[in-house]
């Protein structure tokens, strides 16, 4: 296996495996938020804003996987 194909496989693995966790995490965040909104519809506005913060923090991990993928590919 030459270096170029190893880099391609590495990038695919890094990004593909790296987004599993954040995917589950975002699902849990949104599930919790929807349940809370169902129980207390008046608080929807506050819950949605907090949900977006939670999603952003979780999604940041997926973005790190993407960055690592780019680093593997282009350095």
């Amino acid at each position, binding site marked *: 296996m030459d270096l170029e194909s190893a880099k391609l496989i590495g990038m695919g693995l890094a990004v593909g495996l790296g987004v599993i966790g954040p995917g589950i995490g975002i699902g849990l965040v949104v599930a919790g938020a929807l349940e809370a909104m169902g129980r207390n519809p*008046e*608080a*929807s*506005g*506050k819950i*949605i*804003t907090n949900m*977006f*913060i939670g999603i*952003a923090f979780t*999604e*940041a991990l997926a*973005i*790190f996987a*993407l*960055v690592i993928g*780019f680093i593997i590919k*282009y350095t």
Partner: protein
Amino acid sequence: MDGGISIHLAPLALFHIGTIAISNTFVTALTVSFLLIVFAFFAGRGVTLKPGKFQAVLELLIMYPYNLVRETLGNDRLAERLFPLIMTVFLFVLSVNWFGLLPFVASIGIIENVHGVSELVPFFYPGATDLNLTLALALVAFFAIEIAGITTLGILKYSGKFITFKSPLAFMVGMIELISELVRLISFSFRLFGNIFAGKVLVLVIMLFVPYLLPVPFLAFETFVGFIQAAIFALLTLFFTKIAIEIHEEEHTSAGDSVHNIVPLTT
């Protein structure tokens, strides 16, 4: 590349001024800025105390996010200062994203020599597929957040959030907060870049496989993604500012009060 699709991570340069490459994403961003400025000029010129139909719609569109910013920050003075920035970032990102979906974008251009292969270089290309643009926006948001925190709390109190010697644990937590503050630059810029770039590649691949009809739902999805990403960029700037102007010690005492602050946003 004959027949295949060409995907470039870096934006393609249209022409050079001296040693500075003027890329097509930069031209797109400038065009969108120009259109927004012209729109703002004409929308702001005919403002009257008794609003007409056009002005009433504009006021409605501006008052909803303004109330959201005011309620979230809970500080009218800061809201007045920060709202123009947040709204500008939102409008600019939204316009750049939606401008990138217009038919003439990424299809009309000149044939140029790119990395030894002659290839079509479009005049316009979706602006957020350029990491330079998103990183610049992230830097603006980052400095806005830090400056809002420093001016609200004062430089000693604000830096005390990150560098404390009260206990070893507090010191470590402060260091982690400092790192997460800096990491925001990466997550801010790569979130917008990754979403729009992936969307562009997705539409290109779909167009290669099934050129007719099938790209339509994907373009509709891209319209939605463009709006969501613009909203998330602006909202995250807002929320991080809210975190920056809060002090940790007060969180426990104000926890009881926050129950009364739950205001439905759709009033």
